[in-house]
């Protein structure tokens, strides 16, 4: 074991860990609440910089052979995940003053980073747990509404079921191959041994559970609605990203053949339809975003149908864009003391006339999520379906696109509320918060960059 290697390869994780430790010290020393925010923010910036540096250097290494690997692609993914957390942290400050919140955020992010690099199933397992466990608490920490604990429990139980399912799948794979590497899964894809296929099915089911694919999605709407806005943003972006990156590691560039391919196509397809349709009638913004994220999880898993390099590219690009847009929308939501009411879609009515910037930002996010050009969401959608078509799944691709069409309506409905409907009489005047604007800029700038130069990200593969 080369310690210098370990240090360098895991630099982003180390930075996050250092931040976590620092936060704990602050917590113990009862530092000012604001310090937690500052420390977290700095840690994230440094970690993101580190990840970017590793990526641009083209660093590749395996500090823990067979368990943990770093290459430019994973560094880029880490950079995306860490950078996505930045705006989340920015919009958190007003809701959460205590250091514990940031500690949990950082540890969860740490878990996500582990997932990105994991090469063995135990690492992945720990990554999943480190990522998920703090989030259960984070969901509950929304002091603004009474339902948060309920949301947390639902999330926790479903997460626990997912963990158990994942482990059972891992056990079967292990029994089949005697190995604990992610390669075991990838090879199992090509096998027809009962142990192997059952293991694959269970692991995939566990991923579906974590990513909220229909019919494993039950927890998502409740958890998203029950959590506070920053946490919802975190769940919708970083957690989903982590799960998808884990899936990428598992599939490890292996082609997906039937019957697993159908598994990866049918349920995500159902998710797209289900999420997009169910979102139509929602009255809560976050719940709508939850259904939207169910649909988007469907697109993301679709990407796995494609061949290897394009698959990574598609997932990374999509996760980045999708995350940016989700955070952007949630950041610009009107906020106030009455969370339940602010969360109603009706409270968005006439937003353009009250806060034009917020309305435009949310509109951009919605349109991008709907996958309409020239917004970057379209490129993401394009990438995914290009891969699916290239892999020869024409029917699935067409059905998927039609399913994505179903989603356009509810995104437009949000825009309609903001721009075309008159504001209700008693809308509380919410001041746009400076940090939220900063967060939105952090989202808009890369969104613009990705819209104009999608190649910048795409050509890095």
């Amino acid at each position, binding site marked *: 074991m080369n310690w210098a290697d370990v240090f360098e390869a895991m630099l982003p994780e180390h930075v996050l860990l250092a931040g976590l430790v620092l936060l704990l010290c602050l917590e113990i020393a009862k530092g000012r609440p604001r310090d937690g925010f500052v420390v977290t923010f700095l840690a994230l910036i440094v970690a993101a910089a580190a990840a970017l540096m590793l990526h641009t250097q083209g660093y590749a290494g395996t500090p823990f052979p067979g368990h943990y690997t770093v290459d430019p692609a994973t560094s880029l993914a880490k950079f995306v995940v860490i950078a996505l957390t930045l705006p989340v942290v920015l919009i958190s400050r007003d809701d959460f003053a205590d250091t514990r919140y940031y500690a949990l955020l950082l540890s969860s992010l740490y878990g996500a980073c582990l997932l990105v690099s994991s090469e063995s199933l135990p690492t992945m397992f720990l990554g999943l747990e480190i990522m998920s466990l703090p989030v259960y608490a984070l969901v509950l920490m929304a002091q603004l509404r009474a339902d948060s604990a309920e949301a947390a*429990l*639902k999330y926790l*139980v*479903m997460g626990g*079921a997912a963990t158990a*399912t994942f482990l059972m799948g891992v056990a079967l794979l292990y029994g089949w191959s005697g190995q604990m590497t992610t390669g075991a899964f990838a090879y199992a894809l090509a096998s*027809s041994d*009962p142990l192997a*296929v*059952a293991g*694959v*099915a*269970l692991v*995939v*089911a566990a991923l*579906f*559970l974590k990513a909220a*694919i*229909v*019919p*494993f*999605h*039950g*927890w998502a*709407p*409740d958890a998203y609605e029950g959590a506070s806005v920053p946490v919802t943003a975190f769940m919708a972006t970083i957690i989903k990203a982590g799960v998808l990156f884990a899936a990428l590691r598992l599939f490890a560039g292996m082609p997906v053949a*039937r*019957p*697993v391919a*159908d*598994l990866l196509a049918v*349920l995500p397809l159902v998710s797209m339809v*289900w999420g997009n*349709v*169910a*979102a*139509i*009638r*929602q009255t809560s913004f976050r719940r709508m975003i939850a259904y939207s994220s169910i649909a988007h999880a469907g697109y993301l898993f679709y990407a796995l149908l494609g061949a290897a390099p394009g698959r990574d590219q598609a997932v990374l690009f999509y996760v980045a864009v999708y995350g940016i847009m989700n955070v952007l929308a949630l950041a610009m939501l009107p906020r106030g003391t009455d969370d339940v009411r602010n969360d109603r879609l009706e409270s968005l009515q006439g937003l353009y006339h009250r806060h034009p910037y917020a309305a435009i930002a949310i509109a951009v996010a919605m349109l991008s999520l709907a996958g309409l050009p020239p917004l970057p969401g379209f490129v993401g959608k394009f990438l995914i379906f290009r891969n699916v078509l290239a892999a020869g799944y024409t029917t699935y691709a067409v059905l998927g696109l039609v399913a994505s069409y*179903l989603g356009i*309506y509810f995104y437009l409905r949000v825009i309609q509320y903001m721009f075309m409907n008159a504001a209700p009489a008693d809308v509380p005047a919410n001041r746009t918060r400076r940090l939220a604007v900063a967060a939105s800029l952090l989202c808009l700038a890369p969104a613009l960059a990705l819209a104009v130069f999608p190649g910048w990200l795409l050509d890095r593969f």
Partner: protein
Amino acid sequence: MNLLTVIVLLPLAGFVLNGLLGRKLGPTFVSVVGCGLPILAFLATLKAFSTLQLAGPDAALIEHAYRWAAVGERAFEIEFYFDRLSAVMTLIVTGVGSLIHVYSTGYMKGDAGYARYFAYLNLFLFFMLTLVLGRSLLVCFVGWEGVGLASYLLIGFWFEDPAKAAAGKKAFITNRVGDAGFLLGLFLLYWAVGTLNMDEINAAFMAPVAPAVSASLVGILLFIGATGKSAQIPLHVWLPDAMAGPTPVSALIHAATMVTAGVYLVARMHGIYEHAPEASQVVAVIGLMTAFFAATVALVQTDIKKVLAYSTVSQLGLMFVALGVGAYGVAVFHVYTHAFFKACLFLGAGSVIHALGGEQDIRRMGGLARRIPVTFVTFAVATAAIAGIPPLAGFFSKDEILWFAFASAQGGSPVLWALGSAAALMTSFYMFRLLWLTFLTPSRMSHEVEHHVHESPWSMTSVLVVLAVLSAVGGFVHLPEFLEPVLPLATAQESLEHLEHRLVYVAIAVAVAGFLAATWLYRGGLAKGDALAARFPRLHRLLGGKYFIDELYDAVLGRPLHWVSDRVFLRAGDRFLIDGTLDGLAATTRRVAGRLGRIETGQLQWYVAMAVLGIVGCLAWVWRHV
């Protein structure tokens, strides 16, 4: 110098000047421009005509104005073509046109739309000249549609009256039906011959190897166009309504020039018709029917202009009979004489209406002969001309038509002749009826109207006089022979040639008989005529109602079209089938969305159950494939 282009453009300049500046610069300017430019055009035509005469009998002046469009090797040129046929038409158009412009300065004096009126009139001349001078069918069609437009604008000149505006629309739409036929014919010709130049098309059909298209089909299609413009059955319905326009307009457009465009077209395209006996037959039969039925309707009309309108329709029918039997020159001859006497009649009627302050019903006229003598005399001359009293103009042309209808080697038959003569008889009858009732019988005018009766100003009467003179002597120019280099003379069947003189006497007898009958019936006023009408009430109603063709069209075409559009297309098609399906899909989606929301019960156990179901499903799926 591009003389022909100048001829065409002069009225256009008048239109532009009057249209843009007329209202600002006042009536004098309008009159000078409005009359001056057509007169200039007439003079230019004379100049061109003399050039043509010098060039020889079958020469043609061709002028290239510009290239409208070129596609591939095909080019659509704007060219003007001036041979003897176009020369005659151009002379009529500019000559009679100029006269009517002059007349109009008196007739329209003081009208609020004076400038607009002259603008429209000039526009009409422009399009009419385009029509007759155009070398290609395309240019001809431009004029063809354009005169329809001008006619539309002028019929609806007093647009505040919905009926007049509606009459204009009706004219345009009916013409459009014909135009569609014209277009179809044009397309077919272009496809078959590859050119739209009329002289070349004629030549192509004359050539030993005929174009690969049925001449009859093309002929009939073009004739459909002609029926629209020249108010032949079944598209004649617009012309009587067109009398809603100012009377000079009726004279110019709906008697002398525009309505004869159909005749011109058929004559111009004689190359096709000569090789299309079926089409020619159709032309003759339609013409005959029109001539006959329009004449019967004219018998009972009481509106002075309506009588003249039906008379026009009837006369046009006769022209088509001539065309149908191959006597193209004769048809043009009748166009020429008809232009004089019918213009004179209309303008005379205008003078009467002018004198009576707008009254048009002949039942409320009478005894005007002494009050407006110039009008009366000219009107009487024209009446005699149209009735076919020798040696006035109408006698010559009509007699020739009837002769060829009887004897032409290209489809003449006694039936044509007999019915044509019957139409001529009726013409004579109703025209003299008109003359009696308007001018000679004791006055039936209200006192107030009578008080105001006055002779028209010299600008109007002088025109009447000129036209009356022309109606009287115009027949001595024997046009068919003059046109022979362009339009071949019809040949009579040799076995019948000996009958020619006898038929002339018959024709004279017919004209005189009509005159006598009218005198007998109407010399004393309305009473005898009304008694006769009362004895045949149904027939009278049928004729008075113009055979209820308008109502028939409305019931057979108008309403079903509306019904189908509204009920079938709009309600059943658009709203129910298409939008209904889409709205149904949207509603279904919303309903499904509601269902999906209900599945999300909030029950944790249920969520787990769904997940387990999913896991079982995943396992079952992969097992199936192991």
